[in-house]
Protein backbone atom coordinates (compact mmCIF):
# COMPACT_ATOMS: atom_id res chain seq x y z
CA UNK A 1 0.00 0.00 0.00
CA UNK A 2 1.25 3.40 -0.90
CA UNK A 3 1.52 5.60 2.14
CA UNK A 4 -1.17 8.14 2.72
CA UNK A 5 -0.10 11.68 2.05
CA UNK A 6 -0.60 14.27 4.77
CA UNK A 7 -3.52 16.04 3.15
CA UNK A 8 -5.46 12.84 2.52
CA UNK A 9 -4.71 11.46 5.95
CA UNK A 10 -5.83 14.61 7.70
CA UNK A 11 -8.93 14.79 5.53
CA UNK A 12 -9.90 11.24 6.51
CA UNK A 13 -9.60 12.27 10.12
CA UNK A 14 -11.54 15.48 9.57
CA UNK A 15 -14.51 13.69 7.99
CA UNK A 16 -14.54 11.03 10.71
CA UNK A 17 -14.47 13.75 13.34
CA UNK A 18 -17.29 15.59 11.56
CA UNK A 19 -19.44 12.47 11.69
CA UNK A 20 -18.64 11.88 15.36
CA UNK A 21 -19.50 15.45 16.29
CA UNK A 22 -22.59 15.49 14.11
CA UNK A 23 -23.94 12.44 15.90
CA UNK A 24 -23.07 13.87 19.32
CA UNK A 25 -24.91 17.07 18.48
CA UNK A 26 -27.86 15.19 16.96
CA UNK A 27 -28.25 13.19 20.16
CA UNK A 28 -28.16 16.41 22.13
CA UNK A 29 -30.85 17.97 19.94
CA UNK A 30 -32.90 14.81 20.34
CA UNK A 31 -32.60 15.18 24.11
CA UNK A 32 -33.85 18.75 23.76
CA UNK A 33 -36.93 17.43 21.94
CA UNK A 34 -35.96 19.27 18.79
CA UNK A 35 -35.74 16.03 16.82
CA UNK A 36 -38.66 13.63 16.79
CA UNK A 37 -39.11 10.01 15.93
CA UNK A 38 -35.88 8.12 16.13
CA UNK A 39 -32.25 8.55 15.18
CA UNK A 40 -29.66 5.87 14.58
CA UNK A 41 -26.17 7.02 15.46
CA UNK A 42 -23.22 6.10 13.24
CA UNK A 43 -20.72 6.86 16.04
CA UNK A 44 -18.12 4.11 16.18
CA UNK A 45 -18.42 3.16 12.51
CA UNK A 46 -16.81 6.27 10.99
CA UNK A 47 -13.85 4.37 9.57
CA UNK A 48 -16.04 2.53 7.10
CA UNK A 49 -17.95 5.30 5.35
CA UNK A 50 -14.93 7.59 5.32
CA UNK A 51 -12.44 5.03 4.03
CA UNK A 52 -14.76 4.00 1.21
CA UNK A 53 -16.20 7.36 0.19
CA UNK A 54 -12.73 8.91 0.01
CA UNK A 55 -12.39 7.12 -3.32
CA UNK A 56 -15.68 8.33 -4.74
CA UNK A 57 -16.36 11.31 -6.97
CA UNK A 58 -19.46 13.46 -6.76
CA UNK A 59 -20.88 11.63 -9.77
CA UNK A 60 -20.50 8.21 -8.15
CA UNK A 61 -23.55 6.93 -6.33
CA UNK A 62 -24.18 5.55 -2.90
CA UNK A 63 -27.20 4.07 -1.21
CA UNK A 64 -27.30 4.15 2.53
CA UNK A 65 -29.23 2.80 5.48
CA UNK A 66 -31.33 3.88 8.43
CA UNK A 67 -27.96 4.55 10.11
CA UNK A 68 -27.08 6.90 7.30
CA UNK A 69 -25.72 10.16 8.69
CA UNK A 70 -22.13 8.99 8.34
CA UNK A 71 -22.52 7.97 4.72
CA UNK A 72 -24.15 11.30 3.89
CA UNK A 73 -21.32 13.28 5.44
CA UNK A 74 -18.63 11.07 3.94
CA UNK A 75 -20.22 11.60 0.52
CA UNK A 76 -19.99 15.34 0.96
CA UNK A 77 -23.32 16.42 2.42
CA UNK A 78 -23.64 19.79 4.08
CA UNK A 79 -24.19 19.29 7.80
CA UNK A 80 -26.39 22.37 8.01
CA UNK A 81 -28.91 20.97 5.55
CA UNK A 82 -28.68 17.62 7.35
CA UNK A 83 -29.46 19.17 10.72
CA UNK A 84 -32.24 21.14 9.05
CA UNK A 85 -33.73 17.88 7.82
CA UNK A 86 -33.52 16.35 11.29
CA UNK A 87 -35.24 19.45 12.67
CA UNK A 88 -38.02 19.27 10.07
CA UNK A 89 -37.13 22.44 8.21
CA UNK A 90 -37.97 23.51 4.69
CA UNK A 91 -34.23 24.13 4.28
CA UNK A 92 -33.41 20.48 4.98
CA UNK A 93 -32.26 18.17 2.22
CA UNK A 94 -35.74 16.69 1.94
CA UNK A 95 -37.84 19.66 3.05
CA UNK A 96 -38.74 17.78 6.21
CA UNK A 97 -40.34 14.96 4.25
CA UNK A 98 -37.54 12.50 4.80
CA UNK A 99 -36.14 12.98 8.27
CA UNK A 100 -33.15 11.20 9.74
CA UNK A 101 -33.64 7.94 7.87
CA UNK A 102 -34.14 9.32 4.36
CA UNK A 103 -31.56 11.97 3.64
CA UNK A 104 -30.70 12.08 -0.05
CA UNK A 105 -28.34 14.49 -1.78
CA UNK A 106 -28.46 14.16 -5.54
CA UNK A 107 -25.78 16.81 -6.00
CA UNK A 108 -23.33 14.35 -4.45
CA UNK A 109 -24.74 11.13 -5.88
CA UNK A 110 -26.38 10.11 -2.62
CA UNK A 111 -29.50 8.26 -3.70
CA UNK A 112 -30.78 8.16 -0.20
CA UNK A 113 -30.61 6.68 3.22
CA UNK A 114 -33.26 4.05 3.67
CA UNK A 115 -35.61 2.83 6.34
CA UNK A 116 -35.98 -0.62 4.84
CA UNK A 117 -33.09 -2.90 5.79
CA UNK A 118 -31.49 -4.08 2.55
CA UNK A 119 -33.68 -1.75 0.48
CA UNK A 120 -30.88 0.27 -1.04
CA UNK A 121 -28.85 -2.69 -2.26
CA UNK A 122 -30.62 -3.34 -5.58
CA UNK A 123 -30.95 0.40 -6.15
CA UNK A 124 -27.18 0.82 -6.08
CA UNK A 125 -26.96 -2.18 -8.38
CA UNK A 126 -29.33 -0.41 -10.78
CA UNK A 127 -27.24 2.75 -10.69
CA UNK A 128 -24.22 0.59 -11.53
CA UNK A 129 -26.15 -0.75 -14.50
CA UNK A 130 -26.59 2.84 -15.64
CA UNK A 131 -22.85 3.40 -15.34
CA UNK A 132 -22.14 0.39 -17.49
CA UNK A 133 -24.72 1.22 -20.11
CA UNK A 134 -23.65 4.80 -20.48
CA UNK A 135 -20.06 3.69 -20.88
CA UNK A 136 -18.90 5.80 -17.97
CA UNK A 137 -16.47 4.82 -15.25
CA UNK A 138 -18.84 5.82 -12.48
CA UNK A 139 -19.29 3.39 -9.63
CA UNK A 140 -22.00 2.73 -7.08
CA UNK A 141 -21.60 1.72 -3.47
CA UNK A 142 -24.27 0.19 -1.33
CA UNK A 143 -23.76 0.38 2.42
CA UNK A 144 -25.73 -1.99 4.59
CA UNK A 145 -25.28 -3.73 7.90
CA UNK A 146 -24.98 -7.29 9.07
CA UNK A 147 -28.76 -7.17 9.30
CA UNK A 148 -29.08 -6.16 5.67
CA UNK A 149 -26.72 -8.98 4.72
CA UNK A 150 -29.46 -11.41 5.61
CA UNK A 151 -32.05 -9.87 3.34
CA UNK A 152 -32.81 -11.59 0.06
CA UNK A 153 -32.12 -8.40 -1.86
CA UNK A 154 -28.41 -8.77 -1.15
CA UNK A 155 -28.25 -12.25 -2.57
CA UNK A 156 -30.25 -11.38 -5.65
CA UNK A 157 -28.29 -8.18 -6.21
CA UNK A 158 -24.87 -9.76 -5.75
CA UNK A 159 -25.80 -12.36 -8.30
CA UNK A 160 -27.04 -9.77 -10.82
CA UNK A 161 -23.97 -7.62 -10.28
CA UNK A 162 -21.66 -10.57 -10.76
CA UNK A 163 -23.28 -11.92 -13.93
CA UNK A 164 -23.41 -8.42 -15.44
CA UNK A 165 -19.98 -7.39 -14.07
CA UNK A 166 -21.39 -4.20 -12.65
CA UNK A 167 -19.26 -1.47 -11.06
CA UNK A 168 -20.73 -1.77 -7.60
CA UNK A 169 -19.29 -2.25 -4.12
CA UNK A 170 -21.40 -4.11 -1.59
CA UNK A 171 -20.15 -2.80 1.71
CA UNK A 172 -21.40 -4.70 4.72
CA UNK A 173 -20.81 -2.87 7.96
CA UNK A 174 -20.82 -5.64 10.49
CA UNK A 175 -21.52 -3.66 13.64
CA UNK A 176 -22.19 -6.91 15.50
CA UNK A 177 -25.92 -6.46 16.02
CA UNK A 178 -28.96 -6.39 13.76
CA UNK A 179 -31.17 -4.33 16.02
CA UNK A 180 -30.83 -6.61 19.08
CA UNK A 181 -29.80 -9.76 17.23
CA UNK A 182 -26.07 -10.57 17.64
CA UNK A 183 -24.22 -11.76 14.54
CA UNK A 184 -23.33 -15.08 16.15
CA UNK A 185 -27.05 -15.87 16.19
CA UNK A 186 -27.64 -14.63 12.66
CA UNK A 187 -24.80 -16.22 10.68
CA UNK A 188 -23.49 -19.76 10.66
CA UNK A 189 -20.15 -18.46 9.37
CA UNK A 190 -17.89 -16.21 11.35
CA UNK A 191 -16.56 -14.48 8.24
CA UNK A 192 -19.47 -13.04 6.26
CA UNK A 193 -17.21 -12.18 3.33
CA UNK A 194 -16.99 -15.89 2.51
CA UNK A 195 -20.35 -15.48 0.84
CA UNK A 196 -18.77 -13.61 -2.06
CA UNK A 197 -17.30 -16.83 -3.44
CA UNK A 198 -20.78 -18.16 -4.01
CA UNK A 199 -21.52 -15.33 -6.40
CA UNK A 200 -18.19 -15.26 -8.17
CA UNK A 201 -16.82 -12.00 -6.87
CA UNK A 202 -13.98 -11.08 -4.52
CA UNK A 203 -14.88 -10.96 -0.85
CA UNK A 204 -12.73 -8.97 1.54
CA UNK A 205 -12.90 -8.75 5.28
CA UNK A 206 -11.43 -5.63 6.77
CA UNK A 207 -10.96 -3.96 10.13
CA UNK A 208 -13.45 -1.13 9.87
CA UNK A 209 -11.99 0.66 12.88
CA UNK A 210 -8.79 1.58 11.09
CA UNK A 211 -9.62 3.95 8.27
CA UNK A 212 -6.31 3.14 6.60
CA UNK A 213 -7.53 -0.40 6.14
CA UNK A 214 -10.92 0.47 4.70
CA UNK A 215 -9.25 3.10 2.53
CA UNK A 216 -6.82 0.53 1.16
CA UNK A 217 -9.43 -2.14 0.51
CA UNK A 218 -11.84 0.31 -1.07
CA UNK A 219 -9.10 1.67 -3.32
CA UNK A 220 -8.71 -1.75 -4.89
CA UNK A 221 -12.43 -2.39 -5.14
CA UNK A 222 -13.22 1.00 -6.67
CA UNK A 223 -10.35 0.67 -9.14
CA UNK A 224 -11.60 -2.77 -10.07
CA UNK A 225 -15.13 -1.45 -10.59
CA UNK A 226 -14.00 1.56 -12.62
CA UNK A 227 -11.98 -0.59 -14.94
CA UNK A 228 -14.93 -2.84 -15.72
CA UNK A 229 -13.87 -5.86 -13.70
CA UNK A 230 -17.04 -6.00 -11.68
CA UNK A 231 -18.29 -5.94 -8.13
CA UNK A 232 -16.61 -6.55 -4.78
CA UNK A 233 -18.10 -7.61 -1.49
CA UNK A 234 -16.46 -5.89 1.48
CA UNK A 235 -17.22 -6.80 5.05
CA UNK A 236 -15.97 -4.21 7.51
CA UNK A 237 -15.88 -5.31 11.12
CA UNK A 238 -17.07 -2.41 13.20
CA UNK A 239 -19.17 -1.41 16.19
CA UNK A 240 -21.87 1.08 17.01
CA UNK A 241 -21.54 2.93 20.28
CA UNK A 242 -25.17 3.84 20.70
CA UNK A 243 -27.92 1.27 20.67
CA UNK A 244 -29.85 0.38 17.56
CA UNK A 245 -31.63 3.69 18.02
CA UNK A 246 -30.90 6.48 20.45
CA UNK A 247 -32.53 5.49 23.73
CA UNK A 248 -32.30 1.74 23.07
CA UNK A 249 -32.00 0.10 26.53
CA UNK A 250 -29.44 -2.31 25.04
CA UNK A 251 -30.20 -5.29 27.20
CA UNK A 252 -28.55 -7.50 24.59
CA UNK A 253 -24.99 -6.34 25.29
CA UNK A 254 -22.86 -5.34 28.25
CA UNK A 255 -21.41 -1.99 29.18
CA UNK A 256 -18.02 -3.67 29.38
CA UNK A 257 -18.24 -4.71 25.77
CA UNK A 258 -19.06 -1.17 24.67
CA UNK A 259 -16.29 0.29 26.79
CA UNK A 260 -13.83 -2.24 25.43
CA UNK A 261 -14.53 -1.20 21.83
CA UNK A 262 -14.39 2.48 22.75
CA UNK A 263 -11.12 2.10 24.60
CA UNK A 264 -9.27 -0.21 22.23
CA UNK A 265 -10.84 0.16 18.83
CA UNK A 266 -12.11 3.67 18.44
CA UNK A 267 -11.54 4.78 14.84
CA UNK A 268 -10.73 8.35 15.83
CA UNK A 269 -8.28 7.37 18.55
CA UNK A 270 -6.63 4.91 16.20
CA UNK A 271 -6.35 7.55 13.51
CA UNK A 272 -4.91 10.14 15.89
CA UNK A 273 -2.28 7.64 16.95
CA UNK A 274 -1.01 6.80 13.50
CA UNK A 275 -1.35 10.35 12.27
CA UNK A 276 1.02 11.55 14.97
CA UNK A 277 3.26 8.47 15.09
CA UNK A 278 3.76 8.54 11.32
CA UNK A 279 4.28 12.31 11.53
CA UNK A 280 1.41 12.99 9.18
CA UNK A 281 -0.05 15.47 11.64
CA UNK A 282 0.95 17.13 14.85
CA UNK A 283 -1.19 17.42 17.96
CA UNK A 284 -1.61 21.05 17.00
CA UNK A 285 -2.88 20.08 13.55
CA UNK A 286 -5.42 17.73 15.08
CA UNK A 287 -6.54 20.32 17.59
CA UNK A 288 -7.02 22.79 14.76
CA UNK A 289 -9.11 20.29 12.78
CA UNK A 290 -11.20 19.55 15.86
CA UNK A 291 -11.89 23.25 16.34
CA UNK A 292 -12.78 23.69 12.69
CA UNK A 293 -15.13 20.74 12.82
CA UNK A 294 -16.80 22.02 15.98
CA UNK A 295 -17.30 25.38 14.31
CA UNK A 296 -18.77 23.74 11.22
CA UNK A 297 -21.16 21.71 13.35
CA UNK A 298 -22.32 24.72 15.33
CA UNK A 299 -22.74 26.73 12.15
CA UNK A 300 -24.82 23.86 10.78
CA UNK A 301 -27.06 23.73 13.83
CA UNK A 302 -27.53 27.49 13.67
CA UNK A 303 -28.46 27.25 9.99
CA UNK A 304 -30.95 24.51 10.79
CA UNK A 305 -32.56 26.32 13.68
CA UNK A 306 -32.94 29.46 11.59
CA UNK A 307 -34.70 27.56 8.81
CA UNK A 308 -38.38 27.86 8.09
CA UNK A 309 -40.28 24.88 9.50
CA UNK A 310 -41.85 22.61 6.90
CA UNK A 311 -45.32 23.91 6.17
CA UNK A 312 -48.51 21.83 6.33
CA UNK A 313 -49.78 23.80 3.36
CA UNK A 314 -47.07 22.15 1.31
CA UNK A 315 -47.78 18.64 2.58
CA UNK A 316 -48.96 17.31 -0.80
CA UNK A 317 -45.99 18.68 -2.75
CA UNK A 318 -43.41 16.27 -4.17
CA UNK A 319 -45.71 13.23 -4.31
CA UNK A 320 -45.87 13.45 -8.09
CA UNK A 321 -44.06 15.54 -10.69
CA UNK A 322 -45.65 18.88 -11.55
Amino acid at each position, binding site marked *: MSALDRATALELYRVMRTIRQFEARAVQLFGENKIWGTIHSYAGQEGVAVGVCAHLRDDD*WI*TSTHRGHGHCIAKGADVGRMFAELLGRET*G*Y*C*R*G*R*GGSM*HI*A*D*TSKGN*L*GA*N*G*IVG*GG*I*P*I*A*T*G*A*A*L*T*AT*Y*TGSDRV*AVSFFGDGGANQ*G*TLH*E*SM*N*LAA*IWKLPVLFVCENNQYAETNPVKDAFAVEDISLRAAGYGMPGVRVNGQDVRETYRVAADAVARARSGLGPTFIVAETYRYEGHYYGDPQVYRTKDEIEDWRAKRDPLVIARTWLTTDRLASEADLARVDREVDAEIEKGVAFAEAGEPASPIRLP*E*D*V*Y*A*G
Partner: protein
Amino acid sequence: MRRDGGVVVIGEDVAEGGPYGATRDLVAEFGDRRVIDTPISEAAVTGVAVGAALSGWRPVVEIMFIDFITLALDQLVNHAAKARYMSGGQLRVPLVLRTQGGAGVRSGAQHSQSLEAWLAHVPGLAVVMPATPADAAGLLRAAIRADDPVVVVENKALYYEKGEVADGALVPIGAAVTRRDGRDVTVVATSRLVGEALAAADELAAEGVSVEVIDPRTINPLDRETILRSVSRTTRLVVAHEAATIGGFGAEVAAMVAEEAIDRLAAPIVRVGAPFTPVPASPVLEDAYLVGRREIADAVRRVLRW
Protein backbone atom coordinates in the same frame (compact mmCIF):
# COMPACT_ATOMS: atom_id res chain seq x y z
CA MET B 1 -37.80 2.92 -27.49
CA ARG B 2 -37.06 4.33 -30.94
CA ARG B 3 -37.82 7.81 -29.69
CA ASP B 4 -35.79 7.67 -26.48
CA GLY B 5 -32.55 5.75 -26.14
CA GLY B 6 -32.95 5.84 -22.37
CA VAL B 7 -35.87 3.44 -22.43
CA VAL B 8 -34.82 -0.09 -21.46
CA VAL B 9 -36.91 -3.19 -20.91
CA ILE B 10 -35.88 -5.46 -18.08
CA GLY B 11 -37.39 -8.62 -16.67
CA GLU B 12 -37.62 -12.36 -16.79
CA ASP B 13 -37.80 -13.80 -20.31
CA VAL B 14 -38.36 -10.40 -21.91
CA ALA B 15 -35.85 -11.10 -24.66
CA GLU B 16 -37.75 -14.25 -25.53
CA GLY B 17 -40.97 -12.25 -25.59
CA GLY B 18 -42.50 -13.39 -22.32
CA PRO B 19 -45.27 -15.95 -21.85
CA TYR B 20 -47.74 -13.92 -23.94
CA GLY B 21 -45.34 -12.47 -26.46
CA ALA B 22 -45.72 -8.90 -25.21
CA THR B 23 -42.05 -8.06 -25.73
CA ARG B 24 -41.51 -10.32 -28.74
CA ASP B 25 -38.98 -9.08 -31.31
CA LEU B 26 -37.82 -6.14 -29.20
CA VAL B 27 -34.41 -7.68 -28.70
CA ALA B 28 -33.94 -8.04 -32.45
CA GLU B 29 -34.33 -4.31 -32.95
CA PHE B 30 -32.86 -2.92 -29.72
CA GLY B 31 -30.36 -5.55 -28.66
CA ASP B 32 -29.74 -7.24 -25.37
CA ARG B 33 -28.41 -4.11 -23.72
CA ARG B 34 -31.82 -2.47 -23.92
CA VAL B 35 -33.91 -5.62 -23.60
CA ILE B 36 -32.40 -7.22 -20.56
CA ASP B 37 -33.22 -10.76 -19.55
CA THR B 38 -32.80 -11.37 -15.86
CA PRO B 39 -32.62 -14.31 -13.49
CA ILE B 40 -35.73 -14.97 -11.42
CA SER B 41 -35.14 -12.26 -8.82
CA GLU B 42 -38.19 -10.02 -8.78
CA ALA B 43 -37.15 -7.99 -5.74
CA ALA B 44 -33.69 -7.11 -7.00
CA VAL B 45 -34.75 -6.71 -10.61
CA THR B 46 -37.39 -4.19 -9.58
CA GLY B 47 -34.85 -2.51 -7.32
CA VAL B 48 -32.33 -2.41 -10.16
CA ALA B 49 -34.99 -0.75 -12.30
CA VAL B 50 -35.60 1.79 -9.53
CA GLY B 51 -31.87 2.46 -9.35
CA ALA B 52 -31.66 2.79 -13.12
CA ALA B 53 -34.58 5.24 -13.04
CA LEU B 54 -33.00 7.25 -10.24
CA SER B 55 -29.81 7.51 -12.25
CA GLY B 56 -31.39 8.77 -15.43
CA TRP B 57 -32.96 5.92 -17.40
CA ARG B 58 -36.55 5.11 -18.20
CA PRO B 59 -36.76 1.44 -17.43
CA VAL B 60 -39.80 -0.67 -18.19
CA VAL B 61 -39.59 -3.54 -15.75
CA GLU B 62 -41.81 -6.53 -16.37
CA ILE B 63 -43.31 -8.62 -13.61
CA MET B 64 -44.45 -11.63 -15.55
CA PHE B 65 -47.60 -12.26 -13.51
CA ILE B 66 -49.06 -9.70 -11.10
CA ASP B 67 -49.12 -12.52 -8.56
CA PHE B 68 -45.32 -12.26 -8.40
CA ILE B 69 -45.50 -8.57 -7.52
CA THR B 70 -45.58 -9.58 -3.88
CA LEU B 71 -41.86 -10.28 -4.28
CA ALA B 72 -41.24 -6.79 -5.66
CA LEU B 73 -43.64 -4.76 -3.54
CA ASP B 74 -40.98 -3.43 -1.20
CA GLN B 75 -39.09 -1.86 -4.05
CA LEU B 76 -42.26 -0.57 -5.68
CA VAL B 77 -44.08 0.68 -2.61
CA ASN B 78 -41.29 1.69 -0.24
CA HIS B 79 -38.82 2.96 -2.78
CA ALA B 80 -40.18 3.81 -6.22
CA ALA B 81 -43.36 5.40 -4.92
CA LYS B 82 -41.75 7.43 -2.15
CA ALA B 83 -38.33 8.45 -3.42
CA ARG B 84 -39.52 11.77 -4.83
CA TYR B 85 -41.40 12.66 -1.68
CA MET B 86 -38.87 11.44 0.86
CA SER B 87 -36.11 13.36 -0.89
CA GLY B 88 -38.09 16.59 -0.98
CA GLY B 89 -38.36 16.42 -4.76
CA GLN B 90 -34.66 15.75 -5.44
CA LEU B 91 -35.15 12.25 -6.77
CA ARG B 92 -37.43 11.11 -9.56
CA VAL B 93 -38.37 7.62 -10.61
CA PRO B 94 -39.49 7.51 -14.24
CA LEU B 95 -40.22 3.81 -14.00
CA VAL B 96 -42.86 1.70 -15.69
CA LEU B 97 -43.80 -1.60 -14.16
CA ARG B 98 -45.67 -3.71 -16.70
CA THR B 99 -47.52 -6.71 -15.47
CA GLN B 100 -50.60 -8.73 -16.24
CA GLY B 101 -53.30 -10.23 -14.13
CA GLY B 102 -56.64 -11.86 -14.44
CA ALA B 103 -58.10 -15.31 -14.45
CA GLY B 104 -59.65 -17.54 -17.06
CA VAL B 105 -56.70 -19.62 -18.18
CA ARG B 106 -57.04 -22.41 -15.60
CA SER B 107 -53.73 -21.53 -14.00
CA GLY B 108 -54.81 -21.44 -10.39
CA ALA B 109 -54.52 -19.07 -7.50
CA GLN B 110 -50.94 -17.87 -8.01
CA HIS B 111 -51.15 -16.94 -11.70
CA SER B 112 -54.60 -15.37 -11.96
CA GLN B 113 -55.10 -12.62 -9.43
CA SER B 114 -56.30 -9.06 -9.77
CA LEU B 115 -54.29 -7.09 -7.21
CA GLU B 116 -54.53 -3.59 -8.67
CA ALA B 117 -56.40 -2.15 -5.68
CA TRP B 118 -53.34 -2.66 -3.48
CA LEU B 119 -51.30 -0.50 -5.80
CA ALA B 120 -53.93 2.19 -6.27
CA HIS B 121 -53.76 2.75 -2.52
CA VAL B 122 -50.13 3.89 -2.63
CA PRO B 123 -49.40 7.62 -2.95
CA GLY B 124 -46.68 8.19 -5.52
CA LEU B 125 -47.79 5.46 -7.92
CA ALA B 126 -50.11 5.75 -10.88
CA VAL B 127 -51.99 2.61 -11.95
CA VAL B 128 -53.42 2.14 -15.41
CA MET B 129 -55.48 -0.78 -16.74
CA PRO B 130 -55.86 -0.80 -20.51
CA ALA B 131 -58.95 -2.51 -21.93
CA THR B 132 -58.27 -2.14 -25.65
CA PRO B 133 -55.23 -2.58 -27.90
CA ALA B 134 -55.17 1.16 -28.58
CA ASP B 135 -55.18 1.96 -24.88
CA ALA B 136 -52.56 -0.68 -24.16
CA ALA B 137 -50.25 1.11 -26.55
CA GLY B 138 -51.30 4.65 -25.71
CA LEU B 139 -51.20 4.25 -21.96
CA LEU B 140 -47.85 2.46 -22.08
CA ARG B 141 -46.45 5.27 -24.18
CA ALA B 142 -47.73 7.86 -21.70
CA ALA B 143 -46.41 5.79 -18.80
CA ILE B 144 -42.93 5.63 -20.32
CA ARG B 145 -42.88 9.40 -20.75
CA ALA B 146 -44.15 10.08 -17.23
CA ASP B 147 -41.64 11.24 -14.64
CA ASP B 148 -43.20 9.12 -11.89
CA PRO B 149 -43.61 5.38 -11.47
CA VAL B 150 -46.58 3.98 -13.37
CA VAL B 151 -47.88 0.45 -13.01
CA VAL B 152 -49.46 -0.91 -16.18
CA VAL B 153 -51.77 -3.79 -15.36
CA GLU B 154 -52.78 -5.72 -18.44
CA ASN B 155 -55.26 -8.58 -18.49
CA LYS B 156 -54.04 -11.81 -19.99
CA ALA B 157 -57.44 -12.59 -21.51
CA LEU B 158 -57.19 -9.41 -23.57
CA TYR B 159 -53.93 -10.39 -25.25
CA TYR B 160 -55.94 -12.14 -27.91
CA GLU B 161 -58.06 -9.07 -28.73
CA LYS B 162 -57.39 -7.30 -32.01
CA GLY B 163 -57.93 -3.62 -32.62
CA GLU B 164 -56.67 -0.55 -34.44
CA VAL B 165 -53.65 1.11 -32.88
CA ALA B 166 -52.78 4.58 -34.12
CA ASP B 167 -49.08 5.08 -34.56
CA GLY B 168 -47.60 7.17 -31.78
CA ALA B 169 -50.90 7.97 -30.07
CA LEU B 170 -50.76 8.88 -26.39
CA VAL B 171 -53.56 8.08 -23.98
CA PRO B 172 -53.20 10.49 -21.08
CA ILE B 173 -52.89 9.03 -17.61
CA GLY B 174 -55.86 9.97 -15.46
CA ALA B 175 -58.38 10.31 -18.27
CA ALA B 176 -61.43 8.05 -18.41
CA VAL B 177 -63.30 7.36 -21.61
CA THR B 178 -66.99 6.83 -22.21
CA ARG B 179 -67.16 3.64 -24.23
CA ARG B 180 -70.88 3.82 -24.81
CA ASP B 181 -73.37 6.59 -24.23
CA GLY B 182 -76.53 5.77 -22.33
CA ARG B 183 -79.33 7.31 -20.32
CA ASP B 184 -80.49 4.88 -17.65
CA VAL B 185 -77.51 3.38 -15.83
CA THR B 186 -73.79 4.12 -15.63
CA VAL B 187 -71.51 1.10 -15.58
CA VAL B 188 -67.92 1.85 -14.55
CA ALA B 189 -65.88 -1.16 -15.64
CA THR B 190 -62.16 -1.83 -15.81
CA SER B 191 -59.91 -3.93 -17.99
CA ARG B 192 -61.50 -7.15 -19.25
CA LEU B 193 -64.86 -6.16 -17.84
CA VAL B 194 -65.12 -3.18 -20.18
CA GLY B 195 -65.83 -5.57 -23.01
CA GLU B 196 -68.16 -7.55 -20.79
CA ALA B 197 -70.00 -4.36 -19.86
CA LEU B 198 -70.40 -3.43 -23.51
CA ALA B 199 -71.78 -6.90 -24.24
CA ALA B 200 -74.17 -6.54 -21.31
CA ALA B 201 -75.20 -3.13 -22.64
CA ASP B 202 -76.04 -4.69 -26.02
CA GLU B 203 -78.12 -7.33 -24.29
CA LEU B 204 -79.93 -4.75 -22.17
CA ALA B 205 -80.56 -2.49 -25.13
CA ALA B 206 -82.76 -5.24 -26.48
CA GLU B 207 -84.76 -4.89 -23.26
CA GLY B 208 -85.06 -1.14 -23.79
CA VAL B 209 -82.42 -0.24 -21.22
CA SER B 210 -79.84 2.37 -22.16
CA VAL B 211 -76.49 1.75 -20.47
CA GLU B 212 -73.56 4.15 -20.36
CA VAL B 213 -70.20 2.42 -20.06
CA ILE B 214 -67.24 4.29 -18.60
CA ASP B 215 -63.73 2.89 -18.68
CA PRO B 216 -61.56 4.77 -16.14
CA ARG B 217 -58.42 3.41 -17.86
CA THR B 218 -56.42 4.86 -14.96
CA ILE B 219 -57.55 3.76 -11.52
CA ASN B 220 -55.19 6.15 -9.76
CA PRO B 221 -55.34 9.09 -10.27
CA LEU B 222 -59.02 8.56 -10.97
CA ASP B 223 -60.94 10.71 -13.41
CA ARG B 224 -63.68 11.52 -10.94
CA GLU B 225 -65.35 14.16 -13.09
CA THR B 226 -66.23 11.85 -15.97
CA ILE B 227 -67.83 9.37 -13.59
CA LEU B 228 -69.68 12.00 -11.55
CA ARG B 229 -70.98 13.73 -14.67
CA SER B 230 -72.37 10.48 -16.01
CA VAL B 231 -73.90 9.34 -12.74
CA SER B 232 -75.48 12.74 -12.20
CA ARG B 233 -77.29 12.20 -15.47
CA THR B 234 -78.19 8.50 -15.27
CA THR B 235 -78.76 8.48 -11.46
CA ARG B 236 -77.78 4.82 -11.26
CA LEU B 237 -74.34 3.22 -10.89
CA VAL B 238 -72.87 -0.24 -11.29
CA VAL B 239 -69.13 -0.73 -10.75
CA ALA B 240 -67.59 -3.85 -12.22
CA HIS B 241 -64.15 -5.41 -12.02
CA GLU B 242 -62.63 -8.84 -12.06
CA ALA B 243 -61.02 -8.45 -8.63
CA ALA B 244 -62.74 -9.44 -5.42
CA THR B 245 -65.51 -7.03 -4.49
CA ILE B 246 -64.32 -6.68 -0.90
CA GLY B 247 -61.69 -3.97 -0.73
CA GLY B 248 -61.63 -3.67 -4.49
CA PHE B 249 -61.20 -0.57 -6.61
CA GLY B 250 -65.00 -0.50 -7.05
CA ALA B 251 -65.35 0.35 -3.39
CA GLU B 252 -63.40 3.55 -4.01
CA VAL B 253 -65.61 4.50 -6.95
CA ALA B 254 -68.76 3.74 -4.97
CA ALA B 255 -67.55 5.72 -1.98
CA MET B 256 -66.50 8.64 -4.14
CA VAL B 257 -69.91 8.77 -5.83
CA ALA B 258 -71.69 8.38 -2.50
CA GLU B 259 -69.70 11.28 -1.08
CA GLU B 260 -70.00 13.57 -4.05
CA ALA B 261 -73.34 12.77 -5.64
CA ILE B 262 -75.55 10.73 -3.32
CA ASP B 263 -78.29 13.30 -3.79
CA ARG B 264 -78.33 12.44 -7.49
CA LEU B 265 -78.69 8.70 -6.98
CA ALA B 266 -82.06 7.07 -7.52
CA ALA B 267 -80.85 3.64 -6.36
CA PRO B 268 -78.12 2.12 -4.25
CA ILE B 269 -74.82 1.50 -6.00
CA VAL B 270 -74.19 -2.12 -6.93
CA ARG B 271 -70.71 -3.61 -7.21
CA VAL B 272 -69.82 -6.53 -9.42
CA GLY B 273 -66.66 -8.43 -8.52
CA ALA B 274 -65.25 -11.80 -7.68
CA PRO B 275 -66.28 -13.80 -4.65
CA PHE B 276 -63.86 -13.68 -1.72
CA THR B 277 -61.91 -16.80 -2.53
CA PRO B 278 -58.56 -17.46 -4.14
CA VAL B 279 -58.85 -18.11 -7.87
CA PRO B 280 -59.57 -21.81 -8.37
CA ALA B 281 -57.92 -23.93 -11.07
CA SER B 282 -60.66 -26.30 -12.16
CA PRO B 283 -62.60 -25.01 -15.18
CA VAL B 284 -65.91 -25.55 -13.43
CA LEU B 285 -64.81 -23.66 -10.35
CA GLU B 286 -63.05 -20.91 -12.25
CA ASP B 287 -66.07 -20.30 -14.46
CA ALA B 288 -68.18 -20.02 -11.33
CA TYR B 289 -65.63 -17.59 -9.89
CA LEU B 290 -65.32 -15.23 -12.83
CA VAL B 291 -67.73 -12.37 -13.27
CA GLY B 292 -68.69 -11.00 -16.66
CA ARG B 293 -71.50 -9.96 -18.90
CA ARG B 294 -74.21 -11.87 -17.07
CA GLU B 295 -73.36 -10.49 -13.61
CA ILE B 296 -73.15 -6.96 -14.98
CA ALA B 297 -76.52 -7.29 -16.74
CA ASP B 298 -78.09 -8.67 -13.56
CA ALA B 299 -76.64 -5.79 -11.55
CA VAL B 300 -78.05 -3.26 -14.00
CA ARG B 301 -81.48 -4.87 -13.72
CA ARG B 302 -81.19 -4.68 -9.93
CA VAL B 303 -80.45 -0.96 -9.84
CA LEU B 304 -83.29 -0.38 -12.27
CA ARG B 305 -85.77 -2.29 -10.15
CA TRP B 306 -85.19 -0.01 -7.18
